[in-house]
């Protein structure tokens, strides 16, 4: 029973109740605009779920999300799990609110003529958009597990920029020999004849939400309401079950298009992964395991979970929706 679990930290809400809608404005900072990772806010807004909670949500991009939250420019920030942990360690006055992903796909394409890791010798490969992106280590690990240990060959690791669309363009113009890719890259890669050598899913906390401590103190209700509405949006986007095409595909794509994303490539697909929504957990799951996996895989200094994290808001929101704070049980690629 979810109600019996004692929330970590000091925040408690009356059993099963939150305060009335407060007519609040919330600014959410994301590192860059992206369909796969940061589009659930658009969905929640479009479906009117934030409005139902009395919220007006504005999404802004921020080069340094932690600084945006720390300065009060944003109330809630989304960033890589490792980055959020480091920011909290560094003393940014922000608290971990919830997680964004509970599974991550690790899909890699290599140039058509390449079939083994040795052939990558002397070429340029992409593992992440920017130097220092924690995902880089994770991807190298995933590649190694799949028999593509890059440390055995002499490759130049390059960083074309944050979005996978950029990686793809460099790839199809033969400027790099290996890239990670996402669902929306797949058609172009297939058309180009790329050799897709690794496809795997891992249980991995990709992004964390953080909220400014001062803001959280003053707006516990809005925080819970924000999480509740966002969870509805994620659920809306997520495929009914692994391997199935999301039933809301067209409606979601309409919403994306209205938010200025280019969705022409996605419209024509009927792949199960067309929205990448199957990767997200509808319950915005975070727990100590997700925290610890992040620290372990990215070789961060240990940092105590209980001392630094208060999941009270997330648990409350989950409780209101009648779901549990649990990660996915099975990890299977569709």
């Amino acid at each position, binding site marked *: 029973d979810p109600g019996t679990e004692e929330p970590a930290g000091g925040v408690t809400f009356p059993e099963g109740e939150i305060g009335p809608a407060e007519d609040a404005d919330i600014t959410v900072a994301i590192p860059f605009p992206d369909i796969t990772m940061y589009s659930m806010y658009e969905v929640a807004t479009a479906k009117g779920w934030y409005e139902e909670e009395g919220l007006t949500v504005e999404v*802004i*991009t921020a*080069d340094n999300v932690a600084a945006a939250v720390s300065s009060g420019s944003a109330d809630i920030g989304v960033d890589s799990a490792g980055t959020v942990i480091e920011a909290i360690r560094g003393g940014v006055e922000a608290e971990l609110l919830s997680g964004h992903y509970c599974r991550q796909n690790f899909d890699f394409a290599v140039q058509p003529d390449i079939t083994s890791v040795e052939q990558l010798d002397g070429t340029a490969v992409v593992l992440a958009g920017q130097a220092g992106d924690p995902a880089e280590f994770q991807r190298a690990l995933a590649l190694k597990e799949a028999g593509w240990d890059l440390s055995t060959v002499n490759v130049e690791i390059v960083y074309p920029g*944050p979005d996978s669309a950029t990686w793809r363009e460099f790839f199809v113009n033969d400027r790099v020999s290996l890239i990670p890719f996402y669902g929306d890259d797949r058609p172009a890669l297939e058309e180009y004849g790329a050799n897709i050598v690794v496809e795997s899913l891992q249980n991995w906390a990709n992004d964390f939400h953080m909220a400014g401590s001062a803001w959280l103190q003053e707006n516990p209700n809005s925080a819970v309401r924000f999480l509740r509405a966002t969870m509805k949006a994620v659920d809306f986007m997520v495929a009914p079950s692994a391997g199935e095409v999301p039933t809301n595909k067209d409606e979601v794509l309409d919403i994306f298009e209205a938010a200025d994303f280019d969705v022409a490539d996605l419209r024509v697909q009927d792949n199960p992964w067309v929205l990448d929504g199957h990767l997200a957990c509808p319950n915005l799951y975070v727990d100590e395991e997700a925290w610890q996996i992040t620290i372990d895989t990215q070789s961060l200094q240990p940092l105590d979970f209980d001392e630094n994290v208060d999941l009270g808001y997330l648990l409350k929101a989950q409780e209101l929706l009648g779901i549990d704070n649990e990660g996915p049980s099975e990890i299977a690629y569709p």
Partner: protein
Amino acid sequence: MTATMPLKIVRPSRSARRGSGEGRWRLLLAGVVLAILLLWEAAVSWLQLVPAVFLPPPTAVAASFLELIVRPDFWSAFGYSLGNLAIGVVLAVVIGVVVGLAVGWFPVLRFTVAPFLWLLYSTPKVALAPLIILILGLGAASQIALVLLLAVFPIMLNTMEGALTVNRSLVNAGRVFGANGIALGVKVLIPGTLPFSLVGIQRGAALGFTGQVLGEFLGGAGGLGHLLERAAFDFQMDDAIAMVIVMVIIANLTLTVIGLLRKRFAPWHDDRATVKAG
């Protein structure tokens, strides 16, 4: 009794002179620009020396440009960016000229402050970005701060170089006729330094625009920088270059305005004198 009489003034026909001078160069410039565009189009579309995704041909850019300028959100972004730019550049001019003159003029400041100006100028502004966000937040204030930060140093350092080279005879003359302190600055130093300052201001205005774009990259919403960022993330190079062209147009407009101001306020400054003599 004097040996003076009114001058015999002849007014030459203006249009005749224009036609042979400025007009010809403008025509030539247009020709050269056209040739460059043609080469570009040829290299990308016909010879395919560069993949069009990396360097879209002028025709594609022009199409994007036309699409861009009919979008209403473009014009609101345009107004937003331009407003911040104007505020930032004006601040930069005032601060840059005053500090530049002071530092150029007073040896004490030159020896104690100037090295730090070079130091700040050299500092990659990315380093200061988090600091700016922490203090000013994401939004107009931090964008203006970045415009100022990028624009002020060229103005300041150029003015400083100018103040250092102001003709000493003129300074002496100013002092003899009672100009001291601020009056000396306003009446001798500023006019004497103006050609240098103007070069700095032109450069500062152009850099200021980069500052505005950087400021918008830092975070927030709205503004041309965001449109550019969006286009760049989607790797829509034609959109991105169309945006850059908008920025270049703005920068060139600024240059033109400064040029006009110079003609208006500094008629004595004849930058063609040498060319004529040579």
